[in-house]
C-alpha cells in the first residue's frame, strides 16, 4: 500500500494525543493527580493539539474534505464513521476535565470526567485500529497483532509526553511511572517483531489465485491492462519501500523503544529530568517510521492481478 502521509499523521499524532489523555484521565479517576489546575490543563491542551492536528491532517486524505461531516452518518456499519464520532465525542470529557480540574483533583465529578476521558480515548483508538483490521484484501492489516500494537504505541508515545511534562512541571510524579513506560516500550517492540515475523511468513496472493486460473495450470501475469501507471498500481501495488524494510525496521525499534529506554535508564537514577523530551520526540519519530512501514509493507490482493515489477 502506498503510505498515505495524512493518515500516518493522524495515527501517530492522534494516537499520541489519545494515549496522553488515557493516562491523564486514568490518573485523575484514580485520584493520583494532586497537582492542581495548571498541571491538568497543560497536558490536556497538548493532547488537544496532537489530536486536532491529526484529525485535520486526516481530512487532507479526502478527495472532498468539505463533505467530511457526512462521514459521521454510517456508524452502524463503518469503523471510519465510528472513529469520527468517537473522536468528536472525546472532546466532551476534555472540556469537562478542563472545567473541573483544580486543587487535589479529588472532586468526584472531576474523577468521573477523567474516567470518561480515558474510556472515550480508548474507544477512539480501537475504532481507528479496526478501520485497518477490517480490510480483508490486506493480509498484513488483518493480523491479530495490529489492534493491540496500535493501543500499545498510543499509550507509549502519549505516556512519554505526560512523563516529559511531569518531569519539568512538578518533578514529583510516582517514581514507577517511567518504569511502566519502559515496560510498554519493551512490550511494543516485542510484539512488533512478532508481527513482522508473521507478515513475512504470510504468503502473498498469486496471480493464479486472484484470477482463479490456477486450477487450470501455472499462471504468470504477462501484461497489465495499460502501459502507464494507474490509481490501482500507484495506490495498491506499491513496491518501492520493501527494498529498505530491514533497515527501516531496525531504525523504528531504535527510535520508539531503545532510545526512550536509554533515556529512562539515565533520567531515573540521575534525576536528569531535562532529557525526558528526547524520549518523547524519539518515540514519535520511530512511530512515523513504523507507520510508514505498516503501509509500505502491506500487500493488497489486487496487486496480484498486475505483472510483478522488480523493485527500483
Amino acid at each position: 500500500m502506498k503510505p498515505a502521509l495524512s493518515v500516518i499523521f493522524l495515527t501517530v499524532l492522534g494516537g499520541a494525543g489519545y494515549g496522553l489523555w488515557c493516562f491523564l484521565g486514568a490518573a485523575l479517576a484514580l485520584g493520583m493527580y494532586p497537582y492542581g489546575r495548571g498541571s491538568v490543563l497543560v497536558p490536556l491542551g497538548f493532547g488537544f493539539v496532537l489530536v486536532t492536528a491529526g484529525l485535520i491532517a486526516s481530512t487532507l486524505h479526502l478527495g472532498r474534505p468539505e463533505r467530511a461531516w457526512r462521514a459521521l452518518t454510517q456508524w452502524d456499519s463503518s469503523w471510519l464513521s465510528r472513529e469520527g464520532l468517537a473522536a468528536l465525542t472525546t472532546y466532551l470529557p476534555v472540556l469537562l476535565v478542563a472545567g473541573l480540574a483544580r486543587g487535589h483533583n479529588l472532586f468526584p465529578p472531576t474523577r468521573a470526567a477523567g474516567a470518561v476521558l480515558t474510556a472515550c480515548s480508548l474507544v477512539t483508538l480501537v475504532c481507528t485500529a479496526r478501520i485497518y483490521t477490517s480490510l480483508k484484501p490486506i493480509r498484513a492489516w488483518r493480523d491479530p497483532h495490529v489492534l493491540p500494537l496500535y493501543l500499545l504505541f498510543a499509550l507509549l508515545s502519549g505516556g512519554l509526553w505526560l512523563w516529559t511534562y511531569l518531569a519539568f512541571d512538578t518533578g514529583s510524579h510516582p517514581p514507577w511511572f517511567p518504569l511502566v513506560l519502559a515496560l510498554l516500550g519493551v512490550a511494543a517492540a516485542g510484539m512488533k517483531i512478532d508481527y513482522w515475523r508473521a507478515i513475512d511468513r504470510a504468503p502473498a496472493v498469486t496471480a493464479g489465485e486472484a484470477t482463479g486460473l490456477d486450477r487450470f495450470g501455472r499462471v504468470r501475469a504477462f501484461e497489465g491492462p495499460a502501459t502507464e501507471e494507474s490509481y490501482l498500481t500507484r495506490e495498491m501495488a506499491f513496491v518501492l519501500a520493501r527494498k529498505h524494510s530491514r533497515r527501516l525496521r531496525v531504525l523504528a525499534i531504535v527510535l520508539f523503544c531503545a532510545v526512550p529506554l536509554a533515556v529512562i535508564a539515565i533520567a531515573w537514577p540521575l534525576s536528569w529530568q531535562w532529557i525526558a523530551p528526547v524520549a518523547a520526540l524519539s518515540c514519535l519519530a520511530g512511530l512515523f517510521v513504523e507507520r510508514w512501514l505498516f503501509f509500505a509493507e502491506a500487500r493488497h490482493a489486487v496487486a496480484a492481478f498486475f505483472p510483478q515489477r522488480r523493485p527500483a
Partner: protein
Amino acid sequence: MTALPAPAKKKLGLVIDLDTCVGCHACAVACKEWNDGGAFGPLADDDPYGAEPDGVWFNRVHSYEITGLGTRDLGLAQSAMHGTENHSDAFEAISSQQVGDTNSPRVPGPESRVPQMVHFPRSCLHCETPDCVTVCPTGASYKRAEDGIVLVDEDKCIGCQLCAWACPYGAREISLPRRGVAQSDVGRRDSKRGTMQKCTLCVDRIYNETLDQADRQPACVMACPTRARHFGDLGDPDSAVSKLVAERGGYALMPEFGYGPVNRYLPPRPRRELAPVTGPAAPAEETLEPAGLSPVLRWLDRVLSR
C-alpha cells in the same frame, strides 16, 4: 445507507468467457466512451493526449500466460478437477522426466508444455455482500435492493478511498488530479473530481426506454466482437446466463473473501496440442496419385515429370 439490503432474488451481472476473449480491449474502450458521455459522465482524465495519460477505467483487460492448460485429447473436465497442487505435482513430474529423457520431444500426459495466453477483463463483480459498501462512512457507496447493482452516489462521496482498499478485485478507482500534469479540461470535469468511480453495470442503458430492447445491455457487452461477454440475471437459474454458467463450469473470483461475487468467468477450453517445439521440422514428403487426375493434367504431369 451503507447497510446492505436484504438479499434480493434478482442479481444482475456479467458472465465473461475467457475462452473466446481475444484481449482486444473493445469492452474497456466502449465502457470508457459510454461512461464518459452518458448520464454518469464525464470520467476524469489527466493528460489525456500527453505522454502519460491517466484516468479512471471501470473495466481493464489483463493478459496471463498459463502453462499446463489441459489439451483437447484428454479433455478439460479431467484437468479442471485436479486441484492446484496436483497440477504443480504433475508439472514437476513432467519436468523431471524431460530432464532424464532428452530424446523424447513430446511431453506425455494431459497437460501442454506450450504456454497459452488468457485475456482477462476485470471489472466490478457486483458482489452480494461486499465490504466496499459497509466500510463507507457516508452512505455514498450502496447496493441496490431491486437488482443488486453496486453504485456510488457522487454527491455524497468524500473520497476517503476506504471502499477501494476493501475491494480485492480492483473495481474502484478515484479521480484525483495528479500534480505536475496539465489538466486540459479541468473545468468541465471538476464536478466528479475527488470522488470514487466504478462500474454501474450501465444502469443508464439497461433500463433506458429510449433505447431499442436489444440495446438495453451494458456497453461492454454490446461492443465485444467475439461475444465473450454476457449480461443477465444470475439470480434466476433459468436465465440464459445462469444456464451458460452451469454448462461451462463458470466460476467466481476469490470467493474466499466472502463477498459473494455475482459475475462469473467461463474457463478457457482445452487447446489443440501444438506441434513439439524442437526446431524447424523437415517438410513432409508430398505424394501425387496421377490416377486421380483428369486426362489433361495427367498428360501435363507426365510431360513435366520427364
